[in-house]
């Protein structure tokens, strides 16, 4: 008898859980050339919650994150099997425009990457690219995005200053504001705090906590403490496979798999 990969079900008894699965990853495999990076991943990600991907380096967590908006398509000789759907529609549907997918699925990177422009122009960049020139719309988007990224009060009096003059933590929040300005449905965050001090990290985590009311957030982090603090659900990956995914509280208090227990308690390897 063959068994299909276990679908991770949402536990309806958990407050805030039981939301519809917004991203569905189904029997998904991914190759860089001949190297298989992801193996038969099946995972549902509920909307408007924070889902953390954890695991040792090379486990595939960043690869999977980057496939959620097809960022890895930019790399030569990659291929996949299985499917990923967002809001019920496959991201590999031939009619899906990758640019529009990436507008719906925004990304914040490990290292903040503001453009060498003013704070204002960084936030409204995507609107400019889309041809929006109405000053009222641009101003409104700039302010609302910076407010939602908890940066407005710190920069409202110097919007025309260069973004490169901001602190590391402010730059990262600016990048979040820029992603928000696109009005995405999903925010992908790849180690967003790895280069930040504890205070700046705390501010980003607070921001993530508030943003989940509006966005579905998936975060890759090497910090188990961060995953524990910010996420509602956690998925543990090892050697390209999904070992276990569940409510974060369950994963860190009483995981079902011995590999997960070994990893979170530092007894790995």
């Amino acid at each position: 008898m063959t068994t299909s990969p276990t679908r991770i079900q949402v536990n309806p008894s958990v407050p805030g859980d039981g939301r519809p699965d917004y991203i569905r990853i189904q029997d998904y495999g991914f190759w860089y050339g001949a190297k298989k990076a992801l193996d038969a991943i099946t995972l549902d990600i509920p909307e408007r919650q924070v889902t953390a991907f954890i695991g040792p380096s090379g486990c595939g967590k960043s690869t999977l994150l980057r496939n959620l908006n097809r960022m890895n398509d930019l790399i030569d000789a990659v291929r996949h099997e299985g499917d990923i759907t967002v809001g019920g529609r496959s991201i590999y549907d031939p009619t899906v425009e990758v640019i529009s997918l990436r507008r719906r699925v925004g990304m914040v990177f490990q290292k903040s990457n503001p453009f060498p422009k003013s704070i204002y122009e960084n936030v409204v960049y995507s609107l400019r690219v889309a041809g929006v020139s109405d000053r009222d719309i641009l101003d409104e988007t700039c302010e609302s995005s910076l407010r939602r990224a908890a940066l407005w009060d710190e920069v409202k009096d110097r919007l025309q200053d260069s973004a490169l003059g901001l602190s590391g933590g402010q730059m990262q929040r600016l990048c979040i504001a820029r992603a928000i300005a696109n009005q995405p449905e999903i925010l992908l965050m790849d180690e967003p705090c790895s280069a930040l001090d504890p205070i700046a990290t705390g501010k980003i985590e607070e921001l993530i906590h508030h943003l989940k009311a509006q966005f579905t957030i998936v975060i890759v982090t090497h910090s188990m403490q961060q995953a524990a603090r910010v996420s509602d659900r956690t998925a543990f990956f090892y050697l390209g496979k999904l070992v276990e995914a569940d409510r974060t509280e369950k994963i860190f208090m009483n995981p079902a798999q011995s590999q997960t227990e070994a990893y979170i308690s530092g007894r790995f390897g």
Partner: protein
Amino acid sequence: MQRYFHEELRQLRDDLVLMGERALDMTRLSLKALEEGDDKLALQVRGMDDGVDDLEKRVDREIMRYLTLFGPMGGDVRLLLGARDICHDLERVADEASGIARRSLTISGRGPLKDLLMVPEEGRLAAAALRAAMDSFIEGDLAKAKGILEADKEIDRLNKENYLALLGRSGDTARISPSHVELIFISKAYERIGDHSKNIAEQVIFLLSGEDVRHQR
């Protein structure tokens, strides 16, 4: 910087305070039931124990969740460790009060007992000690917490006096009436409530000052 998860510490404190109020109610009502021979009240006290047990489990879950997920440090660690001990002491207080109510019913079933020795006074002191211990926790009052350590000695003395008074009256233990045997157990239960109040005060001292004053004479 106030973090979103600090709200969970506030919830934990609230649950502990609620548990303290319930345990204190049970202690006071158990004494009233005994003094007035009020079976209905005694049954009410017995029925309150499950609620405290549920609160104990909830507080335990909250502590475990916070320790696991939020990496507490400093005073937050002391609060969580202290809260765990306080919570278990309160659950034991509720058990003692429930036991007192059960023995009250037994005494009442055999006919009213006119002489309750010094048990009412001991019970009032035990309830006052518990109240003061919880107040010291709520108010963060170190002096009040330290005061309870002394008050416990008076409760111990009354418990001993109750036992000796019965012995002196009866000549030997074999002649003590069954109802008075129950009363001695009740006296011991209030003495234990005093001990638990003292334990709570010791945890409050640890929480506020970091000083471990347990097992000091």
